[in-house]
């Protein structure tokens, strides 16, 4: 086998190269030739095609994303921001947290279990690379129509993959979203978020500084999995051959990742590394070039030293492989032994594969020189791969159908106008896939491990204690609404921000930072590009108004199948701080006689609502208005009142409106409520409007008897509209909307909780239960004596028959 060397490339300038197949344009290829002053070698071409792909270079989004930095409020909390592996926010004098959300959409469609699993693994390594211990995960999931047969393939696999990986890593899953919409049919969204905690002085850098330092690759062996993941899967539109792309999906091994985490943290704690970078999309290529470019140094790498899973791999494959569970470390030579020893203690492979080199001349950038069995296969300036990629100001045009779409308002749709019809609508909406109980999904995740989970789903935000002695905690929520963004991407992005902010604020936390995952169609479509630009503008301006910076995130383009793009879906994560986490406010009613107060104002806002979509299949009009000053006020009032003991629970209003919030608050602990509508909302279809409008800036709070005067005085003083709407009734066992209807909680629960098991597995699992019983009992009877192994061996057979996707998992 002959390898394409630098010498050979210089001698054969006219050799044809498959740059188009690798996703590079004619212009981009020419530019590479200019940079190198020759044609690239096969390895170099692979590296440029990866690093200049949309996924790695942000070439279409860069010009817009600058707004996040330009418009960001200055914050002395921010220790690392955009451009780092993840943003780092100081939450006390000595403790910082880091968090980021990232997409793994295309792999999760091609191979749901592994796609979603490695999505979790990837974001966890980003957090680890900052020097932090990962302490929690969340996930924001969007699937096609709930009843579509392909959703029955994708959803169970994605959920099992997230659980399989996260549970085995020992990270509590504390929240997220599950949304169904036909626009995601061929293109589900799997956005994974991870939270990490670190001492302020343990913050790590990715810069490979210090000529002579050793470059160490630690973790799993490198294999042929995931080659071209970023350029093939993440940076192109899906077509009919999507199912042939399975080799581009990586395969995860959470056990190795767990050991990698422990080994890395021990190295960080002992101050044994100078620089560290995770290997994710673009594998070794990205890690080598980014660490060198960050330090302005060069690097010499002996590629044959990389431990391989498959010995026949060629150099360009090794450089492009996206094998999981690997980290790159930069280590001073005299600390190498200690590093290798720590890796050995945890049973993790660690191999010195290269060294940091100085630039040849003071003004010159360093060079990345890679050899393969003594032959030079790469000789390129690392900065040219990382920073000099193309930047496009792509054409943008408002979608042609937008004016008509916005004119088709949901406020004109027929509404239920009598109590019976309203009651029926309430039950139907509670059972709808987007509003129903998500326990079927979330109970597949461990929310208890690490013992610091204060609130987890179905709460509005996940709340994690990060300091057991001092009581410091953080709250996290991740939200988005593709329908709103489809109707108006600027407002839609602000609504996503407002909802995540509100979800964090109702727990009593003070929001301090934002991460985002921007999921859109093809940037080559001017209508999609316009949606993207509007969403970024909305989010950047919104963050400035709320005075909380975007600290990092991810752009995912090409979320479309053929010509059909997904709804533009900016997903926003907000992080808040609770100085005393024991003061957190939960969402469920838990005290008889508490007074229920609605905060905020209710307008006739039904366009883009869950009701319009579920009942009428309608999407049109303009989304609800956003008033971020009001959101801020709402958060401040709840935090203030909670600190004074005036609030026993608080729940944000969003999809499904007031009645959905009431149902969820009742279901949490099985307490009923009696609600009376304000006078102006009692006639005709006004009760419906009050219950189902999706106006933003609202929450319900339950205020203990005797505190209502003090609570409402705070609202009045601060100028926050409030309406007393009812009381918590622990004994009646029903939800009553006076003058309209009464629904027993049992009936409500049956409607609300039955949907997902019916769609994804109650019957199947019931049958499996019997089969498994019989199979292992038969096996046991057949055995002469009760050897435990027999029983254990009997189970995998049943498991394989019933669920081929299933991976080994238990705790």
């Amino acid at each position, binding site marked *: 086998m002959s390898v394409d060397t630098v010498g050979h490339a210089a001698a054969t300038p006219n050799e044809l190269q498959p740059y188009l197949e690798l996703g590079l344009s004619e212009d981009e290829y020419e530019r590479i030739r200019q940079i190198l002053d020759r044609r690239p070698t096969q390895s170099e071409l692979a590296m440029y095609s990866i690093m200049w792909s949309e996924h790695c270079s942000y070439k279409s989004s860069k010009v817009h994303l600058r707004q996040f930095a330009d418009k960001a409020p200055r914050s002395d909390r921010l220790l690392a921001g955009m451009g780092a592996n993840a943003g780092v926010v100081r939450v006390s004098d000595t403790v910082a947290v880091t968090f980021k959300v990232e997409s793994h959409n295309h792999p999760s469609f091609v191979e749901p279990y592994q796609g979603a699993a490695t999505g979790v693994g990837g974001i966890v390594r980003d957090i680890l690379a900052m020097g932090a211990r990962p302490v929690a995960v969340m996930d924001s999931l969007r699937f096609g129509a709930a009843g579509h047969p392909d959703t029955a393939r994708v959803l169970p696999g994605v959920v*099992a993959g997230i*659980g399989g990986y996260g*549970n*085995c*890593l*020992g990270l509590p899953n504390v929240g997220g979203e599950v949304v169904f919409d036909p626009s995601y049919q061929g293109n589900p969204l799997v956005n994974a978020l991870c939270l990490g905690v670190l001492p302020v002085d343990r913050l790590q850098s990715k810069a490979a500084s210090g000529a002579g330092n050793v470059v160490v690759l630690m973790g799993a062996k490198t294999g042929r999995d995931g080659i071209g993941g970023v350029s093939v899967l993440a940076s192109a539109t899906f077509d009919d051959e999507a199912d042939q792309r399975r080799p581009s999906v990586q395969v995860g*091994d*959470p*056990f*190795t990742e*767990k*050991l990698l985490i422990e080994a890395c943290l021990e190295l960080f704690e002992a101050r044994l590394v100078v620089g560290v970078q995770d290997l994710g999309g673009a594998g070794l290529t990205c890690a080598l070039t980014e660490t060198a470019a960050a330090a302005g140094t060069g690097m010499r790498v002996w590629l044959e030293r990389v431990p391989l899973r498959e010995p026949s791999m060629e150099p360009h494959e090794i450089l492009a492989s996206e094998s999981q569970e690997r980290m790159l470390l930069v280590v001073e030579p005299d600390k190498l032994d200690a590093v290798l020893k720590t890796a050995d203690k*945890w*049973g993790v492979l660690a191999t010195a594969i290269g060294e940091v080199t100085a630039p040849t001349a003071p003004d010159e950038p360093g060079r990345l020189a890679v050899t393969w069995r003594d032959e030079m296969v790469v000789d390129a300036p690392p900065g040219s791969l990382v920073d000099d990629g193309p930047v496009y100001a792509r054409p943008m045009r408002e979608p042609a159908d937008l004016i008509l779409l916005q004119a088709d308002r949901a406020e004109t749709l027929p509404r239920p106008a009598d109590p019976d019809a309203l009651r029926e609508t309430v039950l139907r909406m509670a059972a709808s896939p987007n509003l129903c109980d998500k326990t079927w999904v*979330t*109970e*597949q*995740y*461990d*929310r*208890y*491990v*690490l*013992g*610091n*989970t*204060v609130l987890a789903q179905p709460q509005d935000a996940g709340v994690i*204690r990060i300091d*057991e002695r001092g009581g410091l905690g953080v709250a996290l929520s991740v939200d988005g609404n593709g329908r709103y963004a489809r109707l108006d991407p600027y407002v839609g992005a602000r609504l996503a921000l407002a909802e995540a902010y509100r979800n964090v604020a109702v727990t009593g936390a003070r929001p301090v930072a934002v991460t985002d995952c921007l999921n859109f169609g093809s940037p080559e479509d001017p209508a999609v590009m316009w949606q993207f630009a509007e969403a970024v503008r909305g989010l950047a301006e919104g963050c400035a108004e709320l005075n909380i910076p975007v600290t990092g995130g991810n752009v995912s383009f090409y979320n479309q199948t053929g010509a059909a793009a997904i709804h533009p879906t900016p997903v926003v994560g907000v992080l808040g701080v609770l100085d005393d*986490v*024991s003061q957190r406010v939960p969402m469920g009613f838990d005290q008889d006689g508490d007074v229920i107060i609605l905060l905020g104002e209710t307008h006739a806002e039904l366009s883009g609502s869950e009701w319009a979509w579920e009942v009428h299949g309608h999407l049109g009009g303009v989304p609800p208005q956003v008033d971020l000053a009001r959101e801020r006020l709402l958060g401040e009032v709840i935090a203030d009142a909670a600190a004074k003991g005036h609030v026993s629970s608080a729940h944000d209003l969003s999809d499904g409106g007031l009645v959905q919030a009431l149902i969820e608050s009742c279901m949490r602990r099985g307490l009923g409520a009696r609600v009376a509508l304000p006078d102006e909302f009692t006639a005709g279809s006004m009760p419906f409007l009050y219950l189902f409008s999706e106006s933003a800036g609202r929450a319900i709070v339950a205020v203990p008897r005797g505190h209502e005067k003090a609570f409402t005085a705070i609202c009045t003083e601060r100028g926050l509209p409030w309406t007393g709407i009812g009381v918590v009734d622990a004994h009646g066992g029903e939800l009553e909307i006076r003058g309209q209807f009464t629904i027993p909680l049992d009936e409500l629960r049956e409607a609300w909780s039955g949907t997902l098991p019916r769609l994804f597995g109650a019957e199947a*699992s*019931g049958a*499996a*239960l*019997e089969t*498994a*019983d019989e199979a*292992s009992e038969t096996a*046991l*009877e057949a055995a002469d*004596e*009760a050897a*435990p*192994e*027999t*029983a*254990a*061996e*009997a*189970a*995998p057979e*049943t*498991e394989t028959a*019933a*669920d081929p996707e*299933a991976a080994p*998992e*238990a*705790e």
Partner: protein
Amino acid sequence: MTTRIGIVTFPGSLDDGDAARAARIGGAEVVRLWHAESDLRQVDAVILPGGFSYGDYLRCGAIARFAPVMEAITKAVPDGLPVLGICNGFQILCEAHLLPGALTRNGHLHFRTRDQALRIESPDTAWTNAYEPGQEIIIPVKNGEGRYVADDHTLDELTAEGRIVARYAGGNPNGSLRDIAAVANEGGTVVGIMPHPEHAVETLTGPSLDGLGFFASILKHLVGTQK
């Protein structure tokens, strides 16, 4: 004299920190034990925590039973060393033949996390003597392979000898035979339990404080047996 409870960490152990916290809250001194060492460091009792030791890739607990620390524990059990295996720890105890039966894939094939009601069937063990017989407690259960199985003869024997320590109440979360959640060895010193008492020791983070009884029990047991 303070009671020393050893918490073993295998590669892939996850709830080791939680078990340590719970033992501390219960009033014990915690000693962390490493899988590769066979020195039990004079601990008075041992907890094998939850997790996925060795990734559970071969069979849950099948590799962990061969760890040097397990050899030492197995040797010390006949002399009365109390051992509590939680979740993966229970699986390891079965693989090591310190407890009868086995834990197999949940009947419904999913990992499942729930706040689970249990009925304490036997307070006559080193780890449950602080409970009343028949007492109902609520602690988290979370596993993918928690379905307890054994042959009828063993199950009858366990029942007759009062070695079924706890049963699931209000619904069986994984298809365990006879709703078994926890069993003990003949001496009542070694207990394996699938749900997680160590996750129910603080009001802020747990569904209840019902798990504390396991840690109170072992302290009581050790005081009673001290020479």
